[in-house]
Structures are given as structure tokens and as C-alpha cells.
């Protein structure tokens, strides 16, 4: 039996045990799925701290709602959907804050000296990616995290996002367009 099949069987067994209130089983589920959950959350938000908080919140919600999960074998999609929804809520809040900061920065830059502007441009890839992700819409950030970073097929992305594969393709396309523009100096 392949590793994937074994992992799937283990997940089903652990989900059923967790539905019966077995916390140790859920602990193992967290262990099995947290790295993918974390990559997806990071893909949407672009920073480790927020992504970690989102994943914690998502697993907590997952445990509290696990009895409502009828198909134990679809746990991975189910928990990823919770992670994505949590990440999107956080993305919206951060995006609003970033827009406000940009507005303040625009006013402030008129009073700044040229030396300070040069310092401001010398930023690392991480900060640039984080800022660029917050320029995307929530759907674009979701789509690029699931398809671009996590490399899931369009059908799976559509299933997690709750829309058609065509719509996810469009969001991925628009996200790439914007990111290519915003991160052009790191792509050359």
C-alpha cells in the first residue's frame, strides 16, 4: 500500500476517533496536516506570525466542528477550507490596515528627504512579498496560495474555494499579473 493511501486510512481512523472526543487522535491529525495548512496560510498572508495564528484558530474550530464532518476521508479539504477562510478574514483586515498605512505614507513622503526614500527601497524579498500579497483581493490571494504555491490542481482549488475551476483560473491569472508588476525587481 502506498504512503498516501496509508496516510488517508490513518486520517479516516483519526477523524472518527476525534469525533468521539479523542483529543490524542486530533493531536495526531494536527501533526499530519499542519505543514500544508501553514504553507497555505503563509501563501495567503505572507508572514509567519499571522499564518501561525490563523492555523491555530482553524484547527481549534476544526475540532469544535468535527462532528459535523460526514465524510471522514475529505478531512484534508475540509480543514484547508477552514484555514483558507480564516486566512482570508485576516487578509482583509491586514489589507485595510496596509491601505491606511499607504495613505499615511503618501502624505509623509512629501515631507521626507531623498536619503530616507533610498533606505525605504532597500527591503528584502520577504517584506516585498508580504506587501504585494496584501495588494491582491482575498480571492486572488487564496487562489495563488493554493494553486501557485501549494501546487494543487485547479479542481481541488475550486473545491476548497467553493467556486468553479474557470473562476479559480481567472483569479490565479489576475494574481500573477499583479504580483509580476509588484515584484518585478526580484524577478529579473
Amino acid at each position, binding site marked *: 500500500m502506498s504512503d498516501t493511501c496509508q496516510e488517508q486510512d490513518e486520517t479516516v481512523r483519526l477523524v472518527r476517533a476525534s469525533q468521539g472526543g479523542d*483529543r490524542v487522535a*486530533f*493531536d495526531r491529525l*494536527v*501533526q499530519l496536516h*499542519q*505543514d500544508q495548512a*501553514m*504553507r497555505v496560510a*503563509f*501563501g495567503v498572508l505572507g*508572514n*509567519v506570525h499571522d499564518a*501561525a495564528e490563523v*492555523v*491555530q484558530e482553524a*484547527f*481549534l474550530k476544526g*475540532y*469544535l466542528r468535527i462532528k459535523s464532518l460526514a465524510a471522514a476521508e475529505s478531512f484534508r479539504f475540509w480543514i484547508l477550507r477552514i484555514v483558507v477562510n480564516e486566512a482570508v478574514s485576516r487578509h482583509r483586515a491586514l489589507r485595510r490596515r496596509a491601505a491606511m498605512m499607504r495613505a499615511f505614507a503618501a502624505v509623509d513622503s512629501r515631507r521626507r528627504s531623498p536619503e530616507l526614500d533610498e533606505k525605504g527601497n532597500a527591503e528584502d*524579498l*520577504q517584506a516585498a*512579498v508580504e506587501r504585494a500579497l496584501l495588494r491582491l483581493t482575498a480571492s486572488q490571494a487564496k487562489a*495563488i496560495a493554493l494553486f*501557485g*504555491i501549494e*501546487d494543487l490542481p485547479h479542481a481541488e482549488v475550486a473545491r476548497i474555494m467553493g467556486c468553479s475551476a474557470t473562476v479559480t483560473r481567472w483569479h490565479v491569472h489576475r494574481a*500573477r499579473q499583479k*504580483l*509580476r508588476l509588484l*515584484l518585478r525587481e*526580484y*524577478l529579473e
Partner: protein
Amino acid sequence: MDRDVDGLLRRNAERQLAGFDWDRQRRTVMQHLAATQDRKPRRGIGIRIASGVAAGLVLAAGYLGMSLLGGTGRDAMEPIETTTVRESVEDDPLLASTDPATILMAGSMRLLVSNDPMLAPHSLWDQ
């Protein structure tokens, strides 16, 4: 060309998550979970206690209000001697009118208030 952005994002994610403490993350989730579950029953008891206290306050306020307005004991304020009698509508001259406005004003019966002690047994509540 399409994948250049994806590659950049993936490389950045790998670099940022390279030193991530997965065990700590898992422990934090389980700690939150334990704390949430421990809080749950206490919250239930708290709601019940709060409901009991609120119900008690409402009853006390009601009792106080009734005591102030009319009294509830034997030594409460004496009721005003008022008797009510029902008068047949047939004797009412208003019914002779065919004007709808007048009929509406008349109604099907009228209540008359009297202080006559002779009328006391015929209070509206006794009929």
C-alpha cells in the same frame, strides 16, 4: 513565464518556514483546545446562575412595584367603592339613529359608573 511568480513565492515560503517550530505550533493548538473545553462547562453554569439572579431581580421588582401601586397585603389601601352596572342597549336613544357614525359611537353596550351602594352586588365582575 507564468510560473516565475509562483517560483518566487514558493522559494520565499520555504525560506520563511524553514526554521518553524512545528512541535510548538501543535502544542499551542492542543493547549487552546484544552482551555476551550475546560471553559465550556463553567460558562454553562455561569449562564444558569446569571439567569437565576435575573429572574429573582425581576420578581423582586414586580413585587415592589405592586406593593407601591396597590398593595398586596390585608392592610393595603382600601379600594374605592365603585360599582358598575350594565345597561341594556335597547333603552339607549342613540340606537334610534341610522347614522353609521352615531351607531359606532354607541357601541353594543355602555358601561356606567355609580357610587350607589345598592348596586354593589351587580358589579360587572359578578355577572
